[in-house]
Structure formats: structure tokens, C-alpha cells
């Protein structure tokens, strides 16, 4: 079964990416984690996302598009990345989610993926 681990981060954590000293500390543990996922054969896919300032939001009002600069949500934490894993059940998914490197300002959301036939 596929699960998605959604990584949400505050602006402070995003800002770490721009600091050469902090950047390594931010990405290295994630790289190791991804490597572990691959070695365990559970890694399906994923992506890191650029900072929310690079986002564009599309919504419709009636029959016209509204294109806006910036992310959709106004929340303190924004989506920073997502990882898809293939595991037998939710307990296993949670186990892997717990292994994802954490720091202050990062929150994870775990959700099962829809089964393809359903889509």
C-alpha cells in the first residue's frame, strides 16, 4: 500500500536552505533517510518543493481563472516536500515516518494514497 509523508515547515526552516552553513545540516539527514528508504525497498517517489514564495495559485471564480502569486494556504507551516512509500500497512508507514529527521518547525502528515483502481 502506498502512503504519502507530507513534510510541512515553517519559514525559519525554509530559510535554512539559503544559509550555506545550515543547508548541509538540513539536507544531509534527509538524504540519508531517503537512502534508507531505497535500501529497504519501500521508496516509491517524492519531491522537495521550492519555497512558498515561488508558488502560483490557480482558482476559479465563476468561469474565469484567478491566478495569484504565492501559496494557497495562509498557514504558518507550508508544504516543503513529499515522500511516497510502499509498505504493508499503516503501522509500518508510521514506523518509517517516525524515522524521518525532525527539527523544530517541521511537522509531518501521514496519509494513505488512494488505490489506483479507485481513481
Amino acid at each position, binding site marked *: 500500500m502506498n502512503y504519502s509523508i507530507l513534510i510541512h515547515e515553517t519559514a525559519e526552516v525554509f530559510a535554512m536552505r539559503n544559509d550555506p552553513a545550515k543547508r548541509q545540516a538540513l539536507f544531509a539527514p534527509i538524504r540519508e533517510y531517503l537512502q534508507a528508504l531505497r535500501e529497504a525497498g519501500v521508496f516509491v517517489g517524492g519531491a522537495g518543493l521550492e519555497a512558498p514564495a515561488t508558488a*502560483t495559485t*490557480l482558482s476559479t471564480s465563476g*468561469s*474565469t*481563472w*484567478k*491566478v*495569484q*502569486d504565492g501559496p494557497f494556504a495562509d498557514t504558518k507551516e507550508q508544504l516543503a516536500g513529499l515522500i511516497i512509500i510502499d509498505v504493508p500497512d499503516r503501522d509500518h508507514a508510521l514506523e518509517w515516518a517516525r524515522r524521518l529527521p525532525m527539527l523544530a518547525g517541521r511537522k509531518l502528515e501521514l496519509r494513505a494514497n488512494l488505490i489506483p483502481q479507485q481513481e
Partner: protein
Amino acid sequence: MSGAARLAVERAARDSRSRLLAFLAARSHDVAAAEDALSEAFRSALESWPRDGVPDKPEAWLLTAARRRLIDASRHAQVHAHALPDLLAAVDEAQVVVQEQQPFPDERLKLLFVCAHPAIDAGARTPLMLQTVLGLDAARIASAFLVKPATMGQRLSRVKTKIRDAGIAFEIPHGEDLPSRLDAVLEAIYAAYGSGWDDITGADPRRRGLASEALELGALLLQLLPNEPEARGLLALMLYCESRRAARRDGEGHYVPLSEQNAACWSVPMIAQADRLLREAERAGRIGRFQLEAAIQSVHAQRACSGHTDWESLALLYEGLVRLAPTIGALVGRAAAVAQARDAHTGWQMLQQIPAEAVASYQPYWALAAHLLTQMQRGDEALVARERAIGLCEDEAMRVFLMRQK
């Protein structure tokens, strides 16, 4: 003040603003600085004119306000400092002219030609026209073209800098240059006309609904170039398309294809106006792609009188269009017309001639393919083609319509 009256006042304000902008930009070569100088004046005109009435000399009113802002700006050395002398001189010249000439001279044709100049990035021409001639704001233009607002703002800013720094001349092309330069202006205006969600004549899918603005630009161009048959053709084309707007959706908002539209819902005055423009254009004896596209739409419009569609004429007109301007839309349109005039198989063969890469993501191609394959009893292939069309839909109503046909 009534809605209609208010609209009239706003139009007067926008009209005066754009005449002034064209005049000032032509002399200072700095579109951005001229826009800036006029923006405050324009804003306060929109506030006070509905209340106090449109002034006798609206440009004089705007100029006085603009001049005040320019002087202030030069004092605070704020905005476009190096453009100020040129712009101030242009404003001074305008103030002399506004006293002597009534109405204020209209140099917007020069502005339109500059917007569509070959050196201007093609993706910026229509937005630039909409902003400078009609005063639309960048965010609204961005949404209409499905572009990030910040990107649109940057694109517009870059292009105005280019006009100034590259010394693009504000003049009306003549001789051999005119036809191609004019075609670029027509294309740019047509790009503003998206029929919202439908792809009637195979226009670029990035073009999305600023229909009334496009019509306004088309009407203005014709006013400025009354002897140009292609300008007539463009306006006629847009009017024919616009005349069917009410018929495109039924009472429940479902998509209704052209062949099933209730012709009684088509706008008779718009069709009549388009017919007249097309006849006038034909008298000039200089056929062009927009006249041909309009002629195609006029054949469709005749169903309102005759009750049927003359597919033979359409096939011929499309043949002419393809020779003049072989766009993907024209090629697909021709295949559709031939399929109706002759048979599905002949239309299908024409469709097959279009290179695959060109139509990989072109929804109307796949919708037509599904239709023709169904008619040729090739159900499995039709299903695949219909799925492709569904996946490429940008119009939910169209998607629902296609899915119902499964």
C-alpha cells in the same frame, strides 16, 4: 449615477487617459514613466468625474493633475528621474495642444503598432496593449493569460524598458512593412479574444476570455484604420463568435456544441453588424486571413436563417484559409468541414496529415478524431481519442459533455 452612466464616464476617462498616454509616450519614448505620471490623475478622475461630470476638456484635466505629480516627483527625485525632462517637455507640449485642438489628437495607432513591434516579445504584445490602451491592471491580464501576476508585471516592465532603451519608434509603418506589421497588431488583438472556454476557431489555448476588451480594441483599430479590410475582418470575426455566447451553454450550464446550438439564441444585431463589416471589407478586394475566418463564421451564422449549414462553402473557405495561414486550428477546422461536406473518411485522412507532435496536446484535434472514428465505426480507437480529448479539456462543461458520449 446609473450603472450605464457610470460605465460611460469610466470609458471617457480611459479614453482620455490612453490618448494622453499615446501622445506622451510617443514624445518621451518612456511608456512606464508616462503611465506613472497619469496613474494618479486617472485614479482621481475615476473618483470625481462620476460625481462632478466629465470635464469639457478631459485631457486638460488629466494633464494638470499629471503635471503636478511630475513636478512633485522631480522634487523628491523619486521616479524615472532621467525621463523627467523629456516627459515634462511632452506634458508642456500636450498642454499647448489641448488648448488648440479639440478633440485631443489620437495617436493611439502609433501605440498599437509599437505594442506589436517585431522587437517586442510575442507573449507581451497583447498584455501591453491591454495595459496601455485600455488601462487594464497587470493582475487581471495575468489571470486571463494564465500567467503568474509577478511574471506578467516583470514582462510588461521589461518590454517598456526595451521600447525606451532600444529606441523603438512611435510611427505608423508604411509601404511594404505595413501588411505584416498590421497582421501582428490584428493577431495581438485577436489573442485577447478567448471565447472563454471554447476554442471556436482554434485559437491559442493561452488566450482566455477578455472578450469585451478585445472587441473594444478591434473597434478602436477600425476607427483608426477605416480603410483596412483586415481590421474589418477581425472585428466581424469577433462579433460572429460573440453573437453565439448565450447559446454555448444550456439552462443547466451544460456545454452545447455549435451544431446543436439553438440559433434563436444567437444575437441578431451582432450578426447583422458582422455581416455588414464583412461585406464592406470584401469591397476592398484585398482578402486576408481574418476576413476568411470571418467568412467561415458567417457561413455558420446563416443557419439562423436557412436552418442548415453550408459545409461545401465552409470546406472551400477553410481551403483558402489553410493556404494563407496554415495554423493547427485551420487544419483541424478544414478536416472537420471536409468530413461534413464529403465523408468522415476523407476528413480523417486530412486530419492524419497533421504532424503528430503539433497536436499531441491540442484538445480540438482529439475531439474531432473521436467524432470521425465513431462515424467510421472504429469504436475502440474512438474511445482512446475521446479519452485523450477529455484529459486535455480546460473547460469542465466540455469535459462533462465528452464523458457523456462514452
